[in-house]
C-alpha cells in the first residue's frame, strides 16, 4: 500500500480524507485505484481524454513525476505520493 496525500481543495471529493491508501506498482495504477475509491475526484485530475490535467502535480517523495517517468513512475510499499494543487488564495467578499 502507498499513501496518497490529498490537499485541502480536493478533500471534498475524498470524503474529507487527507490521506488515502492506494495500491499499484506505478503512479497510473495508484490513480486508477484512487478514482475507483473516490469517483468524484476523477474529473479534477484527468481531462476528457484521460490524461492528467496540466495543473495537477504529483510528487513521489520529494520528486515531481514529471522529472521521473510521469505516470509510469514506479512506486513501492511505503512510498508517499503527494498531490500538489494550484492554490491562489481568496478575493475579498464583495
Amino acid at each position, binding site marked *: 500500500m502507498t499513501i496518497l496525500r490529498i*490537499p*485541502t*481543495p480536493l478533500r*471534498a*471529493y475524498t470524503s474529507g480524507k*487527507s490521506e488515502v491508501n492506494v495500491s499499484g506498482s506505478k503512479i497510473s495504477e495508484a490513480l486508477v485505484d484512487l478514482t475507483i475509491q473516490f469517483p*468524484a475526484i476523477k474529473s*479534477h485530475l484527468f481531462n476528457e481524454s484521460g490524461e492528467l*490535467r*496540466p*495543473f495537477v*502535480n504529483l*510528487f513521489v517523495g*520529494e*520528486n*515531481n513525476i*514529471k*522529472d521521473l517517468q510521469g505516470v509510469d513512475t514506479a512506486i513501492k510499499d511505503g512510498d508517499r505520493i*503527494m498531490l*500538489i*494543487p*494550484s*492554490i*491562489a*488564495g*481568496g*478575493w*475579498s*467578499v*464583495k
Partner: protein
Amino acid sequence: MIDELSHEQILRYSRHLLMPEVGLSGQIKLKNSSALVIGTGGLGSPVALYLAAAGVGRLGLVDYDTVDSSNLQRQVIHGTSTVGKLKVESASDRLKDLNPDIRIDVYNEPYTSENAMRIAKEYDVIVDGTDNFPTRYLTNDVCVMLGKPNIYGSIFRFDGQVSVFYAKEGPCYRCLFPEPPPPGLVPSCAEGGVLGVLPGTIGTLQATEAIKVLLGIGQPLIGKLLLYNALDMSFDFVKLKKNPNCRVCGPNADIKELIDYEEFCGVPGHHADDTSAGANWDITALDLKERLALTPNLILLDVREPHELEIAAIEGAKNIPLGEVAQRMSELDSAEEMIVFCKRGSRSARAIEILASAGFKKMKNLKGGINAWAEEVDTSLPLY
C-alpha cells in the same frame, strides 16, 4: 548609498547587529534594499510589517481595495479604526508608526500588465501576496522578465505553499504550474474560507525568505517548495526543477512580453463581477421578493455547504452543495422554475452552468446571493 546607521537606528536594530549573519554591514544592506509587496491583505500584512520592522529601506505596497471588517480576522496590518480606508493608506500609516525611518511608496491601483513592469523594476525583490491566479502569473512573468526573485506564498483553508521563484537560479512559478486550473475548479477563500492565522504563518515565512535573499544569507527556497498544513501541522518539502518547456523561462520561451492574464486564466480579476451567471440568468433580491409574493411555492435551491446554513438560511430552500449538484440533479425537476443561490452568487452561477449543460432551462441565479437577500430583503439575517 546610505552607508551609516544613526545611534537611534543602532539601538533599534541591535538584535540584528548582534548576529554575525546580519551585523552592521547586513543591516546597512537592508537599509539600502527594497521590496515590493503585491497585496496588503492576509499575506501582505505580516510581510510588510516584518520587512518594515527589519529595516528594509524602501517598501512598495500595491492594492486598490478598501479595508472591510471581514478582513480583520487575518489582515493584521489593518484595524477597526481603518475600516473603509484605502488598504495602502491604512497599511502605510501602520508601517510608518512601526518604523518611521523607511520609505514607503503606495500604489493604489490594480496590478496589471500595463503598470506592473514600471512598478516592479524599482525594487530588489517582489513578494507575491496576491489572491488570484491572473495576478500570480503576471507577478511571475514580470519577475522572470526583470530577473528578480519572486517570493511566493499562497494559501487556501488550512494549506499553504512557499517558494522563491528566481529564474536566474532555478525554476519559476510556471515551471511548476504551466497553466492555471479551469475557472470554478478551485474555489476562492471567499467561498472556501481560510484559517485567519494561516496567512500569518505563510506571510512570515515569505518575509523570512525576502530578508535572506536581500542579505544573501542561508539557503533560500530556490528550487524547493514548502507545503504546510495547519490541521496536520505538517511541513513537507519537494524539489522543483526548471521545466525545459517553460513558456516564460525555458530555452524556447515564447512569452517575451506580458500577456492578458485574465484571458489566460479564463477568470476575471478583481475588477470584474464573478458573482453573476450572466444577465439572462440573474435575478435581484428585490425581484425575487416580488416573485415569491406571487408564487410562494417557487423552488429555491441553496448550493452552499450544510454548515453555512447555520449562519443564515432562506426558509424552505432545498440544500444541495455545489460539489454534489452533478450527482444529485435527479432530485430536481427541470420542468419547475428554480431560483439558485449561494453566499454571494458565484457558486450558484457555476451550479447553473452544470444544470444548464444537463438541459435545465427554467433557472435564475440570485445575484449577490444570500448576502444580497440579507441586505435588501431580510435584514434580520447576518452578512458573512
